[in-house]
């Protein structure tokens, strides 16, 4: 068994070595991500080559079942693949809310038909998904869904508004919480539905953030027709699907994005002794967080993680990332504070401001701490 794994590691390393273009081993910014979708275009030929190589092995989703086009790797092999990719700093070939969020929910709650219909295009990067959870005024209270789906026999008519929909203006399909029973208690009248963003009545408006960028949208539904077959899970029990998926989202946010919290030494020539001290203590935490991410992912993939531990990871990881950007701004001084021109054309300042959203999106730090206190520490409710 261990020999098999050693062999797998050896082969994987060799395969990556010959298939991952050098350009795909460079550090990447948000702009370098490949999101796929109907309008997805590769930034360059190396990106395309890398994507296609990985896809040929099902490694855009290494641990998804082969029957839908996934890699079918067991947890140990999936970990080896991650480690070997990390070793050469290989970029993920595909960024996708379909992979990170919808896929796991479909694998657990979807019908066989839904899986066959939706999973392969996700794996192949053909359909780009967005998530319709938050609504204006609801904030952390995600279950207060006001978007209504009216029952019209074989379909619903959806009316309402979502907010904080990541890249809704670039997405092909949306997975969405709608209220199907307005008379039931808050958590019990919600359903989880999927629909095409080209359906008549769907429109989006990007939200400008303090960073100057607009990764999120307001999304409006005006008499949108959604076939009944697009329901995932049980009618009125969409909250179960949503919660399951949120746990996954937190795992992804905490473990994928931030597992690689980097040291911040790069590019700083002169540092004052106090900043150095803060960087040193940060580096200790960053190294510990990397270990913690590794442990959590190992536990998670083996089904051993406490279901609420992703909340702890999300809290710690996002706060750490914010601290990292504060330190980078301190280190960079006025140069880092530039909004235009300069060595990085405002990229440092924008990344710093962007990081402030980490502890808000995907469940605020406060919500995560509530979850940890109640579900892991069993502290009493008021």
């Amino acid at each position, binding site marked *: 068994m261990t020999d098999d794994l050693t062999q797998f590691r050896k082969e994987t390393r060799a395969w990556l070595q010959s298939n991952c273009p050098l350009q795909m081993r460079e550090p990447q910014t948000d702009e370098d991500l490949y999101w796929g979708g109907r309008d997805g275009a590769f930034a360059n030929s190396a990106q395309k080559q890398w994507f296609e190589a990985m896809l040929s092995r099902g490694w855009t989703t290494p641990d998804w079942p082969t029957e839908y086009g996934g890699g079918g790797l067991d947890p140990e092999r999936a970990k080896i693949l991650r480690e070997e990719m990390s070793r050469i700093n290989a970029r993920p070939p595909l960024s996708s809310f379909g992979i990170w969020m919808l896929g796991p929910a479909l694998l657990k709650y979807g019908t066989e038909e839904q899986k066959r219909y939706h999973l392969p295009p996700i794996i192949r990067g053909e359909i780009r998904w967005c998530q319709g959870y938050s609504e204006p005024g609801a904030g952390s209270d995600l279950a207060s869904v006001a978007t209504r789906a009216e029952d019209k026999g074989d379909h619903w008519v959806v009316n309402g508004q979502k*907010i904080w929909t990541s890249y809704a203006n670039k997405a092909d399909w949306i997975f969405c919480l709608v209220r199907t029973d307005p008379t039931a208690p808050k958590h019990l009248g919600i359903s989880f539905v999927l629909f095409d963003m080209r359906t008549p009545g769907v429109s989006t408006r990007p939200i400008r*953030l303090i960073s100057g960028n607009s990764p999120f949208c307001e999304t409006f539904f005006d008499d949108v027709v959604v076939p009944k077959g697009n329901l995932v899970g049980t009618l009125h029990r969409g909250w179960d699907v949503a919660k399951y998926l949120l746990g996954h989202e937190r795992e992804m946010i905490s473990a994928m994005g931030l597992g690689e919290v980097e040291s911040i030494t790069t590019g700083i020539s002169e540092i004052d002794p106090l900043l150095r001290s803060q960087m040193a203590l940060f580096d200790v935490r960053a190294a510990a967080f990397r270990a913690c991410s590794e442990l959590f992912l190992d536990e998670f993939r083996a089904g051993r993680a406490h279901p609420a531990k992703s909340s702890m990871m999300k809290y710690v990881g996002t706060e750490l990332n914010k601290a990292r950007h504060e330190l980078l701004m301190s280190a960079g*001084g006025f140069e880092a504070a530039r*909004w235009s021109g300069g060595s990085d054309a405002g990229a440092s300042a924008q990344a710093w*401001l962007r990081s402030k959203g980490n*502890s*808000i999106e995907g469940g605020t730090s406060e919500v995560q701490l509530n979850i940890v206190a109640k579900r892991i520490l069993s502290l009493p409710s008021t």
Partner: protein
Amino acid sequence: MPLYHDDEQTMLQDTARGFFDEHAPVSHMRGLRDAKDPAGIAHELWRRCGEMGFTMALIPEEDGGLGLGHVEAGIVQEAIGRNLTPSPLLATAIGGVVALRAATNDLRTEWLPRIAEGVAIVALALEEGSKHAPDQITLKACKHADGFVLNGAKRFVPHAHIADLLIVSARSSPGAEPMLLAVTRETTGITMRTQQLADASLVSDIEFDDTVVEHSNVLVPPRDTGALLEEILNAVRVGAAAELIGLADGAMERTFAYLRDRKQFGVEIGSFQALQHRAAHLYGEVELARAAVLKAQRELDGGSGDRSRHAMVAKAIASQAATLAVQEGVQMHGGIGMTDEHDIGLFMKRARVLAELYGDTNYHAHRLASVNGY
């Protein structure tokens, strides 16, 4: 004398807050930013600051000023901070005035009245790197028949592009005593590259290329120029600290109001004890900083031998408190706090720049430790 404001200072505070709240609230700054205003400030507002006497606090009465102190100057600066008002007041009426009123030559009588009137704008060209380091002066001033010739560069100078006068630090040779030169912007041999910082303020990198500065434009204080430079820095550090206190107040007011009004899970979010404790902690941090700033202003006004130390403490802790105020502010506002549309993010950006300006918390804590002998 009790440390709190006396009645006249309290009146001035009401006046200053009233003025900036009315004439230059955050929407004023937002308007200039969105219009990509090339000046970055409203000249009309600057003129009115002169009319209100805000430019005059530190100008001696014989030079047409009010002959007040750093407490009064700080009260105005705080009102600016509350409103994020883009204004050259700190550099001009605090830094510039402290520099020029020390001049033993005509510079004093030439410029102080024009500052008092709200006509002249002064910029402080004291930095050469991306972190505050006023001792690192490589700008070279060589002797010349008519005065000095400048070669080198200054960076990140706020308001330089609209300044009538630049106060520039230079050295005749490495290790020599610093010199301060009062250079008009139109002087031949000066080129500027003006760019925006995250808070939408405009700063300039300035190249000096065989720039001739006449003898009459050399700032000659009664004592050594190094000490004057320290005086100027003390003044603008404490002034920036006061602006940070105002900024922290503005951020806190918005945040606490949001906590009181915003409902989630059916109750006001301000009723959540975890947020209450963080809010109360934040309040304590800002009160600490407020007192430290007031103390430093008093020590500057009293000419205490410990004034530099108090200035360091004030700038260090005000930067820290304001940073916490904006971090908690954005986080407690949640998603809306991340949008450009909401003001709280503007407070965060301004706090970042002000925290750097004239030395951040680490810079001053490091210096304080050195002064304290460890």
